[in-house]
């Protein structure tokens, strides 16, 4: 368990709402980002993020500390997003995986180096909108939170090997989309 979580949980369980607002402030950006990338709708992402924290508050007494608090919170967020997607009956997007050998990865990497920070951010947003919600969540959690495979497996309720395979596929799909968006003027 993360040492910073310990006092928060005890205070929240004792009914301290200020302590809970500290917890919300610590994780709201990540929860909102995951929700936004999975749902692609700001209002919906905000609702889901709120629901996530309400669920966290309700079940905090059941948190045993087997995993990191952040892992536990992201799992609730991920499941809440999946529930919302199921409710909305959105069609599953699927970008076909291209053999990465056909992509000029070195050249693409050089092109990314030349991009401004804001341009990269915009490019990621465009690509994320084309990826499936699961791929978007996987990449976001892996690269932003630097979660390891074991933690990702807990969040996504998958085996570590499935996470590894999923991560490779998500990266390949992202690279394919990246190529589409960057060509021809950049490459």
């Amino acid at each position, binding site marked *: 368990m993360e040492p910073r979580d310990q006092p928060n949980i005890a205070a929240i369980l004792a009914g301290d*709402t200020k302590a*809970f*607002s500290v917890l*919300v*402030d610590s994780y*709201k*950006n*990540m929860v*909102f*980002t995951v929700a*936004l990338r999975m749902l692609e709708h700001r209002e919906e*992402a*905000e609702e889901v*993020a*709120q629901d996530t*924290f*309400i669920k966290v*508050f309700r079940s905090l007494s059941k948190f045993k500390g087997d995993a990191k608090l952040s892992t536990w919170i992201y799992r609730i967020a991920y499941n809440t997003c999946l529930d919302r997607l199921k409710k909305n009956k959105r069609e599953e997007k699927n970008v076909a995986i291209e053999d*990465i*050998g056909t*992509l000029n*990865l*070195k050249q*693409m*990497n050089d092109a*990314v*180096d030349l*991009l*401004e*920070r804001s*341009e*990269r*951010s915009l*490019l*990621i947003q465009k690509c994320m909108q084309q990826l499936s919600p699961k791929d978007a969540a996987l*990449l976001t959690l892996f*690269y*932003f939170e630097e979660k390891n495979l074991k933690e990702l497996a807990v969040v996504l309720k998958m085996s570590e090997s499935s996470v590894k395979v999923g991560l*490779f596929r998500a*990266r*390949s799909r*992202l*690279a394919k989309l*990246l190529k589409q968006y960057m060509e021809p003027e950049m490459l």
Partner: protein
Amino acid sequence: MKDNKELEKLVKNLFEGDQLDCPPLGFTEKVVQKIQEESLHSLKPSPLLPKPFFYGLGLLLVALITLVILESGIAFSVSDLTQFGTASEWLANLSKGFALPEVWGYILFATGIMVCAQAAIITKRYSPKLVQ
């Protein structure tokens, strides 16, 4: 293998320029407000009067009725049941000798109304449907 490393490098490079999205202003306050509202609604109801009071009231009523029956001089035994042919005959006979003083009747009636009224008020006030 080399391609895989290149791919990892590319995606990592790309994400280095990315930043987290922020929820709208007042997000935390909204969540805390919702939780406070929820906490208020989830307060567990407790009756206005403690349970032992109702047990005591019940016992008092039973004692009162027993006293009234005894004072009115009704002798009751199992053999009585055999004497009377049917239950209706037995009840008719019982009511004949049941001389309830008028004041006790009023007391019993008023107590009954009070208990019923309080039960109705408590049920209505703490009905889960109304609370939610």
